[in-house]
């Protein structure tokens, strides 16, 4: 009698599993993405969204969006936002991971507590930062002024030279715990005897970090950087809560702009164009991530 076990060993079962996974990916990832690409090639707005009255206009939407006066500024802001956020999240995350690598009483509990910031909804985090960074009555300005570091209040959210960096600071704070956690796992995976051997060979702390920790962490670092880039490019809530991209787009980034185009001015085509351009960047980053996880398996 052929039972379930035989079925599970058979080719049919394998094919079923593959089909299920593919069907899931197709319905919930590929279709929406393709739909976005299609919309970016059509003339479409909120009112024609559900109708068939949406003519294809080729790349004209792309041309239109890229010629908007704010386009390059937003591209530049997005670059700065992603680069600085990822860099500082990684540096501080790595420093904290190495700090908690030193065993001390309560160390692991404290490391757990660091995650508290990460589990908070970004909208809440944004609201708290908005309050901290308020120009006239903000806590940060109060501290800076009472310690004599600044004389005139910094208008964190309404000064166009500062606004983007205010969001970056909040985003770095938000992303540190996640970086620290992943990097801690990577550090823990490095066998202790490697360090011991190096120490016996006379390697100091610094050379052990440069010649052992960093090379052995390469795969982890690659993955963390890739994931951080992707998460940072998805960061919408902080902008909504803190600056709404203002003043006059000085802190606007692609992900927030895409939403503004689609849902504030009902220009679904324009919003889709920005989304598609972002998908391309994310796919590139994801390719790097996949490559680095493959390296990890080899290690």
């Amino acid at each position: 009698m052929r039972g379930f076990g035989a079925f599970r060993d058979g080719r049919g079962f394998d094919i079923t599993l593959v089909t299920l996974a593919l069907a899931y990916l197709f319905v919930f990832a590929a279709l929406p993405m393709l739909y976005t690409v299609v919309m970016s090639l059509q003339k479409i707005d909120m009112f024609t969204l559900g109708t068939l009255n949406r003519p294809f206009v080729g790349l004209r939407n792309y041309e239109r969006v890229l010629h908007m006066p704010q386009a390059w500024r937003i591209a530049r802001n997005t670059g700065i936002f992603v680069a600085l956020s990822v860099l500082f999240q990684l540096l501080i995350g790595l420093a904290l991971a190495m700090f908690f690598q030193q065993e001390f009483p309560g160390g692991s509990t404290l490391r757990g507590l660091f995650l508290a910031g990460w589990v908070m909804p970004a909208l809440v985090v944004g609201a708290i930062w908005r309050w901290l960074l308020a120009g006239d009555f903000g806590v940060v300005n109060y501290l800076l002024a009472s310690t004599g570091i600044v004389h005139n209040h910094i208008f964190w959210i309404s000064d166009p030279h500062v606004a983007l960096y205010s969001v970056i600071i909040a985003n770095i704070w938000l992303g540190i715990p996640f970086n620290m956690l992943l990097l801690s796992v990577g550090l823990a995976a490095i066998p202790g005897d490697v360090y011991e051997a190096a120490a016996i060979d006379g390697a100091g702390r610094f050379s052990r970090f440069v010649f052992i920790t960093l090379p052995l962490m390469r795969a982890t670092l690659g993955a963390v950087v890739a994931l951080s880039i992707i998460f940072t490019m998805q960061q919408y809530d902080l902008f909504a809560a803190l600056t709404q991209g203002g003043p006059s787009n000085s802190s606007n980034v692609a992900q927030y702009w895409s939403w503004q185009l689609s849902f504030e001015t009902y220009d679904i085509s324009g919003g889709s164009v920005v989304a598609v351009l972002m998908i391309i960047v994310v796919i590139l980053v994801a390719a790097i991530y996949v490559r680095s996880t493959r390296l990890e398996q080899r290690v």
Partner: protein
Amino acid sequence: MKRLTRLMTGLACAAGIAAAPGHQALAAQVTLHVWTIDFENLNQYMFPLAKEFEKLHPDIKIDVKHVQFSDMNNDLARASITGDAPDVSYIDNPYIDLFRSRGLLLNLAPMIAKSKVIDLSKFYPGPLAAVKYGDKVYGIPRGANTLALYYNADMFKAAGLDPNKPPQTWPELYADAKKLTNPAKHVYGIAFSAVASEEGTFQFLPWIQMAGGDYDKLNTPNDVKALEFWQKLIDQKLASPDTLVRSQFDSTATFNAGNAAMVISGPWELPRMSKDAKFDYRVALLPTMTEGSPRVSALGEGDNVILKQSKHPKQAFEFLEYLNAQMPRVWNEWGFLPAERVTVQNPKWPADYKVFLAALKTARVRGPSPQWAQISQAIQTAIQSALTHQATAKQALDTAQSQVESIINQ
């Protein structure tokens, strides 16, 4: 849900007929679906009025749904596509043209012509301009609000200013703001909102209009002066730099807390101010550009519309008539100004009411244009880039003007 209700009503009727054969079925009950930005727990406008109407019309049931103000346009657009639009809805006055231009609103003119309740000639020009297109009418203003200048009379006295003489012109406003500003006590001379949202446009447009311009005439030398005037207030710290990120509600909170000596805002603030502001506050009309130059204020609040898809336009219009007949109550009960000439018995805050009503007579609708959202965004960008000196007032308004032109000629 709506379909389910319909199905149930249908079933109930069918059951009624089946149970009483040969008996004339009761007049089928009609359910009107109504969307509003009002809150049920605050017993605002639509919720109590719908209940009152149901009592008077037992054959009509009203199903009121709250929609967030910021989601209303999107939700209404989506629902119209899928055929789930309500029968009656609230639409903010500058967006009537958007929905009208898409053919989603019912022209009420033929029904108004026969109506014994609604008389268009009684409406103030601003609110009427938002709904009337030629001889077609696409909504009934449910009320109105507008902007005026609140000022702290105690601070006026302390600064040696006459609290009975609020500023009448822009130069006077500037001079008073300067005298009232006191950085040591954390007091700004004036608060307003230049936030990058519709509120920023709402606050700025009257200034451009007082200078002779409008949303499609933004860069005349006088218009530039209007924006430069705002620039001057921020540059000299007579108003907080955070004016760029504060909503009207947040700006007024700084006035209530005594951190600003004047604030530009609307009548909706009166209930909160009467609780929070521990000083003698008064209201004056917005100052004009120069002595004797035209006075303009902004028009806020929205309209009750009937969607074209509605299957019960007759009953929906009866409901609109009932709502309109309650106009004398809107000030005292919900804090809107009446949008038409009606007698308000014992108005609350009588002195302030008089000022706001006078301001309303000069209030202009934003636009109208079917592309109002895009136009408004161009104006907000101009305000913000000039106030942060990323562009001069002239450059910013030139850019906005060319953007608006290309939006209109799209």
